[in-house]
C-alpha cells in the first residue's frame, strides 16, 4: 500500500512538472508581453538601454531554455518570479489572494456535495413520482446554465430584490454565501448526475435482488449495499469537481466582484503578465492534482477490489480504463451509464 501511495505521489510530481513545462512552452510562444509593451510604448520614453536593463532584470535577455531552467530552479526554491506589471513577487500576490478563494471554493464544494447527495437520494427514493422526475431533471438543468448566469440571477434576486445578502464583498460570511451557492449549484450538476445514475445502476445489480430476497427493505438495502457501491463513481467525480470549482471561481469572483485568484488571473491576462498567469496555472494545477491524488489513495480504502489489484501489483485489468492523474472530464450526460457487467444480463 505504501508503495502504491509513493508511486502515485511520484506520478503526481511528474505530471505537475510536465504541466508547468507545457504552460511555459505555451506562454513563451507568445509574441508580446507586458515588458515589451512597456518598452515599445512611446509614451514611456524609454531609451533602448532602459529597455535592455528591464529585460535583463526579468531575465528575458536569455535564450528560452535558460529562462526555463532558471524558472524551474527558482520554483524549487519557492520563487514563482515577479509580476511584470507591478514588480511584486508572484508568490506574495497569490498568497494574499488564495485564502479568500479557498474559503469560497471550500464552501462551494460543501454546498455542491450537499445538493448532490440530496438530489441523488431523494431523486431516487422519493415516494412521489413528480418529485423524482423533478429532481432527476436537475443535473441536466444545472449543467446547462452557465455559472455566470446562475451567479447573476442569485445576485439579482437575493441582493437587489430581497436584500438578503450583500451585493459586494464586505468580508462577512453572508457575502460568501451567494458566490458559494453559485459554485455549489454548478459543481452539483455532474456530482448529482453521477450519483443518481450510479444509484440506479447499483439498484439493478443482482446482489440487490438477493438482499430483497433475504427480506431486506429499501432503507436497509440502501444503507448496507447501495450507498457504498454508488459512492465509488462519485468519489472519482469529486476530484474532477475541484477542477470545475477552480474554473468556476474565476467566473464567480468576477460576477460578485470579489478579490481573489480569479481577479488576479483576469488582471494578469489583460496585462499579459506571464509570470502571474504561469503562477496561477501552477497553483491551480497543484491543488487539482493533489485532490485527485487523495481520491486515488482513498479509493482502494473503500473498494476492496482496487485494493486487491494494488496489492497483487497486477497490471490494470480493464483495457481502456487506465488511470492517469485525472480521469477524463465528464460531460453532463456522459456519465449516465456506468458500464455494468452487461453480459451478465444477456447470458
Amino acid at each position, binding site marked *: 500500500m505504501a508503495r502504491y501511495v509513493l508511486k502515485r505521489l511520484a506520478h503526481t510530481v511528474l505530471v505537475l512538472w*510536465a504541466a508547468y513545462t*507545457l504552460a511555459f512552452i505555451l506562454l513563451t510562444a507568445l509574441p508580446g508581453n507586458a515588458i515589451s509593451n512597456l518598452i515599445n510604448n512611446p509614451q514611456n520614453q524609454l531609451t533602448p538601454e532602459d529597455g535592455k536593463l528591464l529585460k535583463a532584470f526579468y531575465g528575458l535577455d536569455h535564450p528560452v531554455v535558460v529562462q526555463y531552467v532558471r524558472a524551474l530552479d527558482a520554483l524549487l526554491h519557492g520563487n514563482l518570479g515577479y509580476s511584470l506589471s507591478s514588480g511584486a513577487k508572484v508568490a506574495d500576490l497569490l498568497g494574499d489572494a488564495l485564502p479568500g478563494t479557498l474559503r469560497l471554493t471550500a464552501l462551494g464544494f460543501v454546498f455542491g456535495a450537499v445538493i448532490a447527495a440530496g438530489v441523488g437520494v431523494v431523486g431516487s427514493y422519493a415516494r412521489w413520482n413528480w418529485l423524482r422526475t423533478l429532481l432527476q431533471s436537475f443535473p441536466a438543468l444545472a449543467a446547462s446554465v452557465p455559472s455566470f448566469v446562475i451567479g447573476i440571477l442569485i445576485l439579482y434576486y437575493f441582493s437587489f430584490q430581497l436584500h438578503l445578502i450583500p451585493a459586494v464583498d464586505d468580508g462577512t460570511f453572508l457575502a460568501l454565501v451567494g458566490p458559494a451557492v453559485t459554485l455549489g449549484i454548478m459543481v452539483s450538476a455532474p456530482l448529482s448526475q453521477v450519483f443518481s445514475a450510479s444509484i440506479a445502476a447499483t439498484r439493478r445489480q443482482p446482489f440487490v435482488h438477493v438482499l430483497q430476497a433475504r427480506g431486506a427493505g429499501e432503507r436497509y438495502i440502501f444503507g448496507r449495499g447501495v450507498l457504498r457501491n454508488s459512492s465509488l463513481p462519485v468519489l472519482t467525480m469529486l476530484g474532477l469537481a475541484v477542477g470545475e470549482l477552480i474554473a468556476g471561481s474565476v467566473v464567480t469572483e468576477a460576477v460578485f466582484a470579489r478579490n481573489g485568484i480569479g481577479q488576479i488571473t483576469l488582471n494578469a491576462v489583460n496585462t499579459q503578465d506571464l509570470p502571474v498567469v504561469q503562477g496561477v496555472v501552477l497553483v491551480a494545477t497543484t491543488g487539482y492534482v493533489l485532490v485527485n491524488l487523495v481520491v486515488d489513495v482513498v479509493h482502494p480504502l473503500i473498494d476492496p477490489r482496487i485494493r486487491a489489484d494494488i496489492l497483487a501489483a497486477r497490471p490494470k485489468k480493464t483495457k481502456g480504463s487506465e488511470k492517469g492523474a485525472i480521469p477524463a472530464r465528464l460531460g*453532463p450526460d456522459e456519465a449516465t451509464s456506468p458500464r455494468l457487467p452487461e453480459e451478465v444480463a444477456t447470458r
Partner: protein
Amino acid sequence: MTTTAENPAPSVEARDTGGSAKTSRGRAIAILLWSIRHWSVVVAGAVLVVAVLWALVPGWFAHSSPTAIGATDKLLPPSSAHWFGTDRLGRDQYSRVVHGARASLSGSVVAVLIGVAVGSVFGALAGWFGRWIDAVVMRLIDVVLSIPGFLLAITIVVVLGYGILQAAAAVGLTSSAAFARLIRSEVLRARTSQYVEAAVASGARSSTVLLRHVVPNSLGPTLSLVTIQFGISIIWIASLSFLGLGAQPPSPEWGRLVADGRNFLASKPYLVVYPALTVAAVVLAGNRLARHFAERQKR
C-alpha cells in the same frame, strides 16, 4: 436484472410504431403521438432551429441593426419597439441577442471541430497502434487534463489573443484531450472485441478491420460526446466573453451582453436576464437532444 432472458424483447414496441405508419394519415398520427410523448425533445428541437436561424439569417428576426447607436434611446425598458429594451448606447437589445447567436454558435462549432480533429488524430493513433505511441499519447493527455480546463483555455487565450475565434480555438484545444481519451478507448474496445477477432480469424485484412469495423463502431460514442461538447463549448465561450476574453465590442455575443448589462443589474435587470436566459435555453435544448440521441443509440 437476472431475468432478462425471460423478459420479452423490448423491440416489440419499436415494431408497433413502425407498423402503424403505413398510410400518410397513419403516419401523421404516429408523428403526432410521438411528439406528444416526446414533447421536450420537440421543444428542444424548435429552440435549436430558431437559434440556428438567428445565426444564419438574423435579418429575418430582427429588423434594427445590432450596432446602430441610438443617442436618444439609451436604456429603454422592454417595449413593442424594443422587445428586450435598449442598452446604454441605445442599441436594440433583442437585435443584439439575435445577432449574438452567430458568434456563440459558430464559435462552438469551431471549438468542437478542433476538439474532434485534434482528439481523433491522437486518440486513434494511440488506440490503434498501442505500445509506445499509446504510452506517450496517454501521458500527454494526462498532463493536459491535469490543468483545470477553463484555466487552460484562459492560458491559451493569452497566447492567441482576444476574439471569438481565438476563444473557440482555446476551448477546442482544451477539449481535445477528452476527445482523444474517449476515442482511444473506443478504438481499443472495438479492436479487442470479439467481432474484430472473428473478422481476423476469417481472414480479413487489417485495413478492412480498421475501416469496416473499428472506425464505424467507434463513431457512435464519439458523436454522443460531440453533441454534449456543443453545449459545454457554448457555455465556455460565453464565459470567456463574459470575462472579456472572448468576443470584443461592438460585436454582440451572449456572454458579452450579460457582462455589459451587469452594471445595470439593480435597475435594468432585463438587460441581463434576456441574454442570460437565451444561453441557458439553447444549451439546455442542445443537451436534451444530445441525451435523446444517446438513448436512441443505446437501443
